[in-house]
């Protein structure tokens, strides 16, 4: 029962957060709505007994990605977005239609098999098991990921820095 209440509340928050994030004109508000979405998703992960993933979700998405988005917005856009420019793209109507169509298609299998039987076998929410798996069979993947993150870091810095003149920054005497 408590699980159901939590599920409905969290999914409502997630859906609302996502909707506000993609529809809000003010980008800073949008980012914070996105953060709410991420937080609700983290709650859903907890509900699904994947607590490590929930922690990582908060750590990575809210702690890192959120701040990154905020900085990107403040570096680029008129923050408040209160200019009179059109917000939507040219083919927004067809985009909407496609999104709705995809939703219907995605719903089909779930509806066809309704209702599903309850699964009683709950997984062990142990971080230890996850750690063992990461270290034993998936250690290569982990290393590759580390490499990928490093490459992404360097790539991001290079891309964002652009062609800088060799003149050094800071205060001339």
């Amino acid at each position, binding site marked *: 029962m408590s699980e159901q209440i939590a599920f409905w509340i969290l999914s409502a928050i997630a859906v609302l957060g996502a909707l506000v994030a993609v529809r809000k004109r003010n980008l800073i508000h949008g980012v914070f709505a996105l953060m709410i979405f991420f937080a609700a998703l983290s709650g859903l992960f907890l509900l699904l007994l994947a607590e490590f993933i929930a922690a990582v979700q908060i750590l990575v998405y809210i702690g890192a990605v959120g701040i990154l988005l905020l900085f990107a917005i403040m*570096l680029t856009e008129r923050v408040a977005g209160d200019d009179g420019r059109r917000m939507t793209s040219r083919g927004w109507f067809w985009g909407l239609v496609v999104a709705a169509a995809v939703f219907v298609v995605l719903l089909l299998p779930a509806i066809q098999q309704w209702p599903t039987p309850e699964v009683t076998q709950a997984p062990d929410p142990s971080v230890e098991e996850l750690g063992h798996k990461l270290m034993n069979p998936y250690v290569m993947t982990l290393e590759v990921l580390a490499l990928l993150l490093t490459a992404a870091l360097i790539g991001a810095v290079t891309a964002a820095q*652009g*062609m*800088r*003149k060799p*003149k050094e*920054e*800071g*205060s*001339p*005497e």
Partner: protein
Amino acid sequence: MSSATAIAPNYELIQQDGLETSLLEVSMGPHHPSTHGVFRMDVKLDGETVVDLQPVFGYLHRNHEKLAENMSYLGSMPFTDRLDYFNSMTNNWAYALAAEKLVEIEVPERADYLRVIMAELTRLVNHVSLVGFFINDLGALGTPLLYAFREREKILDLFEQASGARMMCNYFRFGGLRNDVPEGWLDRARDVVDHFPVFLDEYEQLLCENEIILSRTQGVGCLSRDLAISAGITGPMLRASGVNYDIRKVDKYSIYDRFQFRVPYTDGNVGDCYDRFMVRMLEMRESIRILKQALDGIGDGPVLGNAPKVFKPKPAEVYGRVEAPKGELGFYLIADGTPKPYRYRVRPPSLINLTVLRDMCLGQKVADAVIILGSIDIVLGEVDR
């Protein structure tokens, strides 16, 4: 594609290709916690870096000079207290010196000794509280300031016993002092002076080699010797920039030639906030030396000379100056034969030292601008008059 926009003489804003990082214009003051009064700095910031700075003052303008021109000579003596309200004694003295040049007045020896004692005590008060405020600007939450104020209180008590007022002393008169110090005052003063070095030792031990203070102040707000000279900077700030110039030594006014004391100064390579801080710390030691000699050498006698009842000088132009704690404080008087000065002009060290604020701050961080202002040592009463 990157372009450098010159927005200040010695700073170029490096425009990242097309990234429109706009400058942040911050109006620091007049109600900012660390502008030392009602003073405003219009700062343009590139991130945290100060790229332009415009000092704005005048909020405390009280028409001091014009008032004094409509008043008898002695009448404006109390108003000089309010110029640099930390150092009323030296303000009095500078004005008295100027006025004494207008007419021939003998200042009795005891009065001269007491004047020196008062002036040097004032220097201690000023420097000790300045150092406290300076560390406060560095972010030390008032602890050094309150210790400094403990010492300041003792000296203010002395002032109170002598003149009846702690800050607005109004103690000097043309030709001497208003009254003699009360009985036992000299002993109490000797007591305070003897204990002051103990406090200074403690202070130096805690502050002068503190890693954070060193790294915050060294290389910050450098003032070159040439700029200091051409801007007319005086006082500890000038000496921190490497010029050996002290009016007590240059003019030898009053009886300063009788005392043994040294003038600390730097070799002029840096002239940063640390130098200004340290020069003041070292000057306090020398003030104590003077005080000890003066307290030992003082004799008995009158404290007020043959001052005329009606002060009505012949037409003349005079300029009297002293080495006030903040620099050269001068009074320029033109007498026209009436009991009122025709022209009365103050040369305030705070204002003139403040003129180089912009040059020192450009290119520094915003936190540095605050401590640079603190190291200049201004009092707005004197800047705005």
